[in-house]
């Protein structure tokens, strides 16, 4: 073993090319009973430089699945492109969109296939399950994944996740005597939590800011649509009739 370590360098040590960088930003998704919210900021940075104030990190895959990608931007964009390509072949073969739990497994295999030269990205997949429930799947760069109620990832994960643990899982809280915590939060509560998470992350983390993109996926005939009535900066992206519905809300975040 010692022999292996002590190979003498006859040449001057060359600068090793590092194929990765870190482009900042944060993503977040929360699942409700019959909806899912997937959000990300739009700043892209490297070191202390802001490269652009608008580079989307959240992508609509189908009318029931939205993918947020954070980490090394070049890997992220390529990964989304490849996932979309696989979904297109699925559509060719089956004339319908791939269900979200299948997309989640697909993403796992795609990430793990690069186990020894990973996509340096944290993925969060949100949407509506075939049974109509809201879903969030989160992944590590090499494909470990699980279904959860909420997840934050990226630069400000350490700021946002504890806040979510407290507000969504009610960690470190005790219900008032004779009451209990709600099983699922309403859409309007979730939207407020997401917006507050990002304004706070923008305040405290230099890599978060500029803009917020928040995708909302609603199950078929979801009554949650009521809470979207007067949301500022919202537009609908739904492609199908009488199915799930997709909305996006765009907001400004502080640019400093």
């Amino acid at each position: 073993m010692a022999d292996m370590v002590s190979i003498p360098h006859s040449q001057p040590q060359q600068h090793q090319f590092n194929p990765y960088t870190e482009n900042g930003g944060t993503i977040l998704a929360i699942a409700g009973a019959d909806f899912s919210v997937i959000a990300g900021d739009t700043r892209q940075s490297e070191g202390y430089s802001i490269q652009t104030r608008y580079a989307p990190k959240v992508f609509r895959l189908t009318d029931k699945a939205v993918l947020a990608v954070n980490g090394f931007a070049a890997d992220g964009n390529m990964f989304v492109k490849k996932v979309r390509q696989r979904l297109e072949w699925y559509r060719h073969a089956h004339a319908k969109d791939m269900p979200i739990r299948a997309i989640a497994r697909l993403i796992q295999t795609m990430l793990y296939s690069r186990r020894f030269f990973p996509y340096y990205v944290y993925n969060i997949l949100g949407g509506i399950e075939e049974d109509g429930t809201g879903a969030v799947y989160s992944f590590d760069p090499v494909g470990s994944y699980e279904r959860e109620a909420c997840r934050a990832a990226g630069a400000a994960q350490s700021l946002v996740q504890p806040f979510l643990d407290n507000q969504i899982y009610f960690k470190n809280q005790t219900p008032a005597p004779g009451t209990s915590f709600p099983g699922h939060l309403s859409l309007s509560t979730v939207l407020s939590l997401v917006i507050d998470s990002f304004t706070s992350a923008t305040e405290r983390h230099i890599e978060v800011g500029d803009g917020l993109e928040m995708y909302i996926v609603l199950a078929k005939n979801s009554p949650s649509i009521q809470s979207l009535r007067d949301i500022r900066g919202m537009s609908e992206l739904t492609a199908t009739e009488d199915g799930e519905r997709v909305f996006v809300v765009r907001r400004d975040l502080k640019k400093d």
Partner: protein
Amino acid sequence: MSIAAQTDSCPRQPIVTGTSVLALKYKDGVMMAADNLASYGSLARFKDIQRLHPVGKYTVIGAGGDMSDFQYIQKFLEQLIIEEFTSQDGHDLGPAQIHEYLSQVMYSRRSKINPLWNSLLVGGFKDGKSFLSYVDLLGTTYSATTLATGFGAYLAQPILRKEVEGRENELTEEEAIRIMESCMKVLYYRDARSLDKYQLAVITADGVKISESRHLSTTWSFAEGIRGYGAQTQ
């Protein structure tokens, strides 16, 4: 065509290098600027190098980083444009398509650990729309109304943003030239790998125009008054 056919995984380093490239969107299209210097380390080796290159009828690419890699990029893009031209069916590649293609090449080369050592700006104007985007040796891409590579990202980008953001549709060509000139001047004063000779490219509905080399007039008399470091110690 065999782009990056070689899977030579020995990492290299840039040898003859260009410094910053600047670009902005203005009323009529896109403007780009880069000086004429190609350095060999700290030696100002070639002082009449063109770092802005037209690709097809609607696009200009500007390069910082390794100049031989840039020449290789010019070569295969030329090949691509010829292939596209020979199909003679009225379809041609605009700046967005060229940028996408370039990004794929840059990303696939970085994935082979054999990067093309450049930071590139792609600017263009086609079908009434201006286009401006960045790609580098890692395959990282982004777009904005003002872009700058290399030292320009630190020295010129703040000036460009202040002057251009929110005024993209009002800025005239004259104003854009003035902004570019002042940024190039800042770069020449502070970037030791820069030159006071540069070119401007404008891409508008009229097509691509790359200027003759322009000279920056600078004053150095203030240097006389500097005390406390360097040769003069008092």
